[in-house]
């Protein structure tokens, strides 16, 4: 009989398990990357690419910094104080991250055209790119600051309040939440590097657009691969100091522990500050670009064509996103078990997760296309089907599942395994009766989060979806060039309403669970 204590001890199986998890995530890209490094290209990486890297790093840095300046206090205030309609505000803040960034860029562009030439000049610059990318960065920084502040114990907050009033509470909470929020802001900045949409729409040279050009205009995969490798190296060099300094704090922050959590209190002044901050964030990341996106609806809504598109693509969108969410969450939960309680493993997994996140999505997708092409027909069920899309999306977003998986396992008391061992409970029963039920809520949350993020993907779905199985965002993407503006706006409206509904349902489920 294997003892449950096995789960609490170090062992070679942890390293092997983690290696298998991450190799399955980046394995598809390795042959392609090898070809990129060893193959020959007609073009070389020159000064323009270096300049694009610098421009994009600057833009990413600025996006991260702005997200931090607004997101940190907003998240902290929402965690500490009872803001009016806090759940709705948080849900609305998350919503922009669930919509593909190219739609926000189009929304900004359309709004500027309506406003006038001065607005057009302002938006058709790096300003437009940064505003569009903020829709992704701000929500995740707000959420991180919120979750981290909720990690403070009630006694810590009470002690700060007794010592120096609300000012001391705020300073203490901000100090506590700042390192993880900074790291997440940096991750958000890194994520913007692989997004070519806004740069293309606003006519700015970004590194993602350069790599895309190598792929799709020059058909030079070797060059694109080399550019990706170089970008990954630059990003690692830049972020390693941050990971080393702030990583342990974030890892600690996301690791749940048994405690009395902080209870939000009522404060008119702080409440007003909080609502103002949320209003600014929502105005910039949601309301303004959404207005630009939906203005064509004033000329009428194309109900039937939009409904037809929804019926054709809605099921597939749900399938891809749920499939990706479940695979990523389960892989993440397994990863959490393999990491166990080792701080070194947590740091390693965190760094590896960063590596996976900065891979261009097309790299994973093209890796799977080539694999599917060279595999026997029997493998089509996995390599050339809707499951392939789920797999590719899950691989891309697996780091989120891994982080939440680590958090879930870290929240288990080691004494449970000891108690089970003392009473002679076999490992299998301990896993089924204790570990799995304990990991389930975190796994479900990870699945929902990954599902929502996967729902907005376009690049992976375009390259991998089986013929006839489009998703709704891909449909918007393929019709927007020449479809009437009102149809594109109607499709966008449907997509945003669907994302908001799913988000609301998820929040209601979580609220029900916490009660």
């Amino acid at each position, binding site marked *: 009989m294997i003892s449950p204590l096995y789960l609490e001890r170090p062992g070679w199986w942890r390293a092997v398990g983690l290696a298998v998890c991450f190799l399955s995530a980046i394995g598809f890209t390795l042959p392609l990357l090898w070809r990129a490094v060893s193959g020959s290209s007609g*073009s070389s990486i020159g000064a*323009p690419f270096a300049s694009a890297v610098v421009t994009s790093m600057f833009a990413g840095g600025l996006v991260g910094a702005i997200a931090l300046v607004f997101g940190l206090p907003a998240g902290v205030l929402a965690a500490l104080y009872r803001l009016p309609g806090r759940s709705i505000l948080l849900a609305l803040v998350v919503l922009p991250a669930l919509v593909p960034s190219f739609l926000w860029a189009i929304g900004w562009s*359309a709004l500027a*055209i*309506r406003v006038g030439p001065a607005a*057009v000049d302002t938006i058709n610059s790096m300003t437009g790119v940064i505003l569009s990318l903020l829709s992704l960065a701000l929500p995740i920084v707000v959420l991180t600051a919120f979750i981290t502040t909720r990690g403070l114990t009630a006694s810590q907050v009470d002690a700060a309040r007794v010592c120096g009033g609300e000012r001391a509470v705020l300073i203490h909470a901000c100090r506590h939440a700042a390192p993880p929020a900074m790291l997440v802001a940096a991750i958000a900045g890194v994520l913007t590097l692989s997004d070519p949409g806004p740069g*293309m*729409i606003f*006519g700015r*040279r970004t590194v993602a*657009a350069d790599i*895309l*050009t190598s*792929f*799709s*205009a*020059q*058909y030079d*995969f070797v060059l694109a691969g080399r550019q990706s490798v170089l970008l990954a190296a630059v990003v690692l060099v830049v972020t390693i100091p941050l990971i080393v300094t702030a990583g342990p704090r974030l890892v600690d922050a996301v690791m749940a522990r048994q405690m009395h959590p902080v209870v939000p209190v009522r404060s008119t002044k702080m409440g007003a500050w909080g609502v103002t901050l949320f209003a600014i964030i929502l105005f910039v990341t949601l309301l303004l670009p959404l207005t630009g996106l939906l203005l064509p609806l004033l000329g009428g809504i194309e109900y039937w064509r939009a409904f037809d598109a929804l019926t054709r693509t809605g099921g597939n969108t749900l399938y891809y996103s*749920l*499939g990706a969410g*479940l*695979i990523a969450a*389960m892989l993440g939960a397994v990863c959490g078990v393999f990491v166990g309680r080792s701080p070194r493993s947590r740091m390693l997994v965190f760094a590896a997760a960063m590596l996976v996140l900065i891979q261009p999505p*097309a790299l994973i997708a093209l890796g799977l*296309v080539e694999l599917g*092409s*060279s595999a026997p027909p029997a493998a*089509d*069920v*996995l390599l050339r*089907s*809707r*499951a392939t899309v*789920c797999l590719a999306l899950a691989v891309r977003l697996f780091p989120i599942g891994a982080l939440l998986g680590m958090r879930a396992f870290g929240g288990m008391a080691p004494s449970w395994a000891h108690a089970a061992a003392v009473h002679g409970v076999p490992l299998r029963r301990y896993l089924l009766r204790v570990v*799995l*039920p304990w990991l*389930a*809520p975190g*796994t*479900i949350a990870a*699945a929902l989060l990954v599902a929502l993020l996967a729902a907005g993907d*376009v*690049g992976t779905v*375009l*390259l991998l*979806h*089986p*013929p*006839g*199985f489009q998703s709704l965002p891909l*449909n918007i*993407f*393929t019709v*927007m*060039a*020449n*479809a*009437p*503006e009102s149809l594109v706006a109607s499709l966008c409206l449907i997509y945003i309403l669907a994302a908001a509904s799913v988000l609301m349902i998820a929040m209601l489920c979580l609220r029900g669970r916490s009660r």
Partner: protein
Amino acid sequence: MHRIILMLAIGFIAMMPIACSRESGSSSSAGEVVVYTSVDEVFARPIAEQFEKDTGIKVRLVPDTEETKSTGLLNRLIAEKQRPVADVFWSGDPVRAAILKQEGVSAPYRSPQAGGLPERFSDPDHHWTGFSARARILIYNTNLVPADQKPASVMDLLDERFEGRVCIANPLFGTTSMHAAALFDVLGEDKARAFFEGFIANGGRILSSNGEVRRRVAAGEFALGITDTDDFNVARIEGKPVAAVYPDAAPGTEGMGTLIIPNCAVLIAGAPNADNGKRFIDYLLRPQTEQRLAESEAAQMPVRSGVESPGHVTPLEQLPPMTVDYDKLAPLLEELSRGYLKQWVDRNLQ
């Protein structure tokens, strides 16, 4: 409760491959054809649906756009070369079709329906066959450009009366890339380079796509741009203040002519449903399909003579076409995309 949810989730994942076996195996079953297309979905889907009704063969359409935000279907077709999924590639222009021929992705097919189609729009080795065409046009905002100052040539993009108010799409992508290669072919390298440099000197802007050119000229942000006839027609239907000019095609002038961009039907080598693919290509090349595309929002010009088309579609025979060898444009474009055009875009996109 958690256990039930967990079991359901495991069940979902376990069922995924079973549920997917139908779609992955479907491309080899009878009665289907897989069509990849770079023609905008709003124009391609009605034709595919009509084919389904007329023949009973199910069409699985995989659309793409000429927008510059994806790695595109062409890469997917090349990556799938060893064991293709697609039967037919319905290309929006002959250059992508020629690239597929170069890469060994396409197979020769001479359709019985190709009889009335002009040979100059098709590959001599029958790897691609051209039908309904678009043209590259000058689109201008009628509120900003008086009728007596309307442009007549692509060279008007360099005219000082439009200084700081002209735009084109990124010439590394889509039909604009083909137009750029055609200009190099027709004008020669020196004059073509002078055109692109002059465009920037005149305050010209590079936008993301032809659709963006249409939108921003219609909005009055730019006075003049270059786009395709189908883009212009969408703005015309929406009642935007725009008009179009076929460049270098005015009667009595000796301009270089208007670039004509035919659609192309390509049979994929090793197509799983080759017979149905051929039937789909035959269907595309019929006069009725040309007529349907002329009547659609795409307002495409039939290349076959004698096909009826609405009044707003200019008959091809009324246009002096730019004389280009489409097959030679593919290698030229490849060279330019790695050379001058890439450098030009690098220099002028900040």
